[in-house]
């Protein structure tokens, strides 16, 4: 399917849910509304798009300029060799979004990482807890208001096993 057809399909299939659709060479960029995430992701996985590989899932802290967090999903289609970047903007206070762990298994760890680093809550995630930082760590290190040199020594020497 040609790129123009795909853009049309996006607009037809996700009308009302797409905020923006653009192209980056061979690839596409979609900005969608948060409520539509599961529906859009579910149909991107299937015919006619076949974006079956969740390459990456991350977050950007845009609270300074746009007062929002931006979730960024990268999908890849093994059939066509195309990538797509799906972005969702979340409100700065109490950001939360549906979990895609039911669609892709690697989303489990990826969403735990985003929760760990940005404090985004994933609704429906099977086991949402920190992954890289330890339990009891305070704050979310990749948020822009977390100071670069803040130290949090693990002060539980008394009950070391």
């Amino acid at each position: 399917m040609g790129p123009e057809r795909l853009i049309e399909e996006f607009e037809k299939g996700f009308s009302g849910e797409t905020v923006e659709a653009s192209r980056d060479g061979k690839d596409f960029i979609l900005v969608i509304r948060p409520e539509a995430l599961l529906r859009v992701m579910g149909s991107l996985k299937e015919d006619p798009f076949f974006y079956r590989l969740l390459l990456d899932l991350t977050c950007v802290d845009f609270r300074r300029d746009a007062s929002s967090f931006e979730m960024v999903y990268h999908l890849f289609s093994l059939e066509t060799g195309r990538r797509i970047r799906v972005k969702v903007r979340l409100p700065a206070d109490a950001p939360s979004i549906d979990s895609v762990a039911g669609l892709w298994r690697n989303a489990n760890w990826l969403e735990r990482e985003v929760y760990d680093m940005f404090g985004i809550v994933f609704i429906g995630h099977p086991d949402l807890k920190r992954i890289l930082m330890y339990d009891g760590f305070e704050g979310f290190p990749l948020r822009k208001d977390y100071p670069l040199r803040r130290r949090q020594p693990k002060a539980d020497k008394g009950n070391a096993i």
Partner: protein
Amino acid sequence: MTLESRSEQNSMLLNLGPSHPAMHGTVRIMVELEGERILNSEVEIGYLHRGFEKTCENRTYFTLLPYTDRLNYVSPLINNTGYALAMEKLLGIEAPERAQYIRILMCELSRISDHLTSVAAMGMDCGAFTVFLYMMKAREYLWDVIEFTTGARMTASYIRIGGVRADLHPDYRSALEKAVRETRKVLKDVHGLLDGNKIFLDRTKGLGALTKEEAVSYGWTGPCLRSTGVCYDVRKSRPYLVYDRIDFDVPLGANGDNYDRYMVRMMEIDQSLRIVEQAAAALSPRAPFAARNLRPIDPSEAIRLSRHQRAVGPVRLSPNLEGSEKEVYGEIQTADRRWTLPPKEDTYTTMEGLISHFLFFMPGRGIRPPKGEVYFSVEGGNGELGYYIVSDGTDRPYRLHLRAPCFHIVSALERLIEGRFVADVIPTFGSLNMIGGELDR
């Protein structure tokens, strides 16, 4: 400890790692056992988390390069290449052809050493210490070539935005030929030692198997995905550098078990050696100064002369800068001077060179890409190594995220060892080639 017991009967909790020789880095696997069978497990990562992404947001685009070396520390040159190519896409520039071939040569040497390390460790996990020693020996010959070119064995920071730091050494070919010869010999020996070895086969054949669909669902890429039979190689499906001009095959497995992962890696080493030979054929060695009847002058002399006139002839640079002389600059660095370090000769002898050197390093100056975002990925030792960079127009990345292939692969480990024996955990884990630096960032 968060592992919940699934069994009604007396099960035992066993803690593997985080600091254990079989864990290849620092990772903790908690297993719940009934007898020797694994009922349930949980993998805990993060012991090597250094805050790579946060650090990069606070470094300039030029000075964050050494941090990328420390991700997959067995193949740092591929990490450098991924970052440089992502930046080049963001800046809209391209490295000259010679630099691209040098990058391919260096990437493939790194890939071979990555695969060698992985297979060596996996062999050792099964008790094949000879394999480990043979492969480490071959890796040393490969790293000799890398050291000859970059000056460092591991943390090279050699691939730069817009090109490479220096040209190849005039005598690089003899070292390369030796490395290729020795690696081929070791491959043959290792095939002989492992392919039909009962101890090895018992711990690899049919163990840790994943189907195509599951592998895709776990986001696997690289040799692990190809071992299940899915043909996806970034070098083929989204060719970067000049990989489209090079002839090589993508080896595939069928069962996605430990044995296929071993086999795919071994066959990929073979293919990488082919690529190395093709890249080397395209790279004529640089003639040394003596052969060109040039007499380089000392920097102090050049500075003295430059007070009266423009410097003529080459300046003798320190051995650390060998290969980055001004006359080879055009072949190894992009022509757009805004994004590259000015040649050292200019910095020493001309006012403009000195000014552009200072401007390159001054806070708030240097490389300032336009506002925007970019995702670029290369085929790393473990799979698709992607950089997602968001630029806000300043000299530091607003956000830099690494897609670490290891992260996705290790996330499937719990699934791979479920229902198996404790002794199967070690070779299964070894076959995944977990690299802590990349996994935990």
